[in-house]
């Protein structure tokens, strides 16, 4: 089930339809340092920003086919900061020559009663994970290097185990729908990170 177009959503009147352009790759733990050095040189000069987030993915199962997915994220390093709720649509199957994965994206901030609210609405938490890593910015481009960890005991964020020996590297841009120039900029930035990381558009459906 797909979310209806933004014009019908009652959240706020007249929001712009934001699309997320995404390229993903990974880097092994031993090559992390060189990647961070390279990113620090290429991206806007700012204090290196690390983050530790706990993401919960909620599903609302309909009678027909695809469940509706919402992602709720909270910061472990800043516990008082509001939760971040995100909806990501299906990747647009536009023209194959587009270099990045494009999908509809709706972001809202939420208070700390979000998990209870979602439970009351009928959503059920499907899975959760911890993401810890670094974030870099270059203009509108955002590069996130994160280590994903599995939560062994639900609710206990201390007891975690890393999913793999690699860090996930994601290059993303949030832009209003219709701006296709982004993918070119993303591709040239991705070129500069080779051969350390190969950022490419990976369709998650392929790995189901």
């Amino acid at each position, binding site marked *: 089930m797909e979310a*209806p177009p933004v014009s019908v959503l009652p959240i706020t009147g007249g929001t712009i339809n934001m699309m997320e352009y995404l390229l993903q790759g990974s880097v092994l733990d031993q090559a992390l340092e060189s990647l961070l050095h390279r990113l620090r040189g290429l991206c806007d000069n700012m204090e290196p920003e690390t983050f530790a987030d706990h993401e919960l993915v909620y599903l*609302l199962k309909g009678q027909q086919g695809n469940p*509706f997915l919402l992602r709720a994220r909270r910061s472990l390093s800043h516990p008082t900061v509001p939760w971040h709720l995100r909806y990501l649509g299906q990747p647009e199957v536009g023209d194959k020559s587009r270099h990045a994965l494009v999908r509809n994206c709706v972001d809202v901030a939420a208070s700390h009663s979000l998990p209870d609210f979602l439970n009351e609405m009928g959503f059920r*938490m499907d899975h*959760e994970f911890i993401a810890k890593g670094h974030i870099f910015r270059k203009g509108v481009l955002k590069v996130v290097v994160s280590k994903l960890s599995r939560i062994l005991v639900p609710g206990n964020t201390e007891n975690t185990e890393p*999913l793999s020996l*690699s860090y996930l590297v994601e290059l993303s841009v949030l832009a209003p729908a219709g701006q296709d120039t982004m993918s070119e900029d993303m591709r040239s930035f991705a070129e500069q990170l080779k*051969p350390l990381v190969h950022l490419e558009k990976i369709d998650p459906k392929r790995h189901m």
Partner: protein
Amino acid sequence: MQQREEKLLEASVESLISRVAHLKNALHSFIYKLENEYERLTWPSVLDNFALLSGQLNTINKLLRNEKTPSFRQQVIIPLLLSPDRDEELAKLTEQRVPVFSHEIVPDHLRTKPDPEVEEQEKQLSAEAARIGPEVAQKQIQTLNKLCSNLLEKLNNPRDDRDAESAAIRQNKPSFNTADTNALVAAVGFGKGLSKCRPPGPVAPGHPGQGPMMSGGPTLQQVTIGGGSGQHQGMGPGAPQQQGQAGKMPSNIKTNIKAASSMHPYNR
């Protein structure tokens, strides 16, 4: 004849001075940038500066190597007048760096012999060269020539050859693992391998595990929102407005209420 040579000399000295002035300015601005704006400096712009300096050095070299340039080595500079007084014109010409043309600065500025350390090193090198004998020297020259020609060949050859070789070398130290990439993307995309309190290993996505308290996904028997909506029977009619996003949901809740009423209201 002599006048032509003089004119040539003057012209080449002029152009050399202007090129060196450009180089000096480039160095000056680069050092300024490094010292004052290092927080905002990015690696590509540092590379640009170095490229600029290298280009300017190249033009100076080309100028010196030009056939029209007379050999500067054959010119001799003799100071005609030394005075301990401050010379304003000289100070202006040299941007206040040489205010006095006296006997203190002349040995430094007009020196033709290399520095004492450099002289020492040159002496050592020529002694070494004399020591090893002509055949050994010849062999060393040949090895150097062979290495240089190999390098030139590698650099001039088409890129594909180089890429194939370097790809082979890179195999030894890969910095990313494609399988890991796929696993991570699948985990972030739809929770493959992340099902609650499951041991490592990909689990069929979308099917929640049973038992754990926080998740409490409905079991397969209770099919989807049957359990959830049974809880919210009172909210059913009110839900359509709130669940604006899930447009089709309200109808499902209404129809399921009957089915769910048979279940315990606290069963999630």
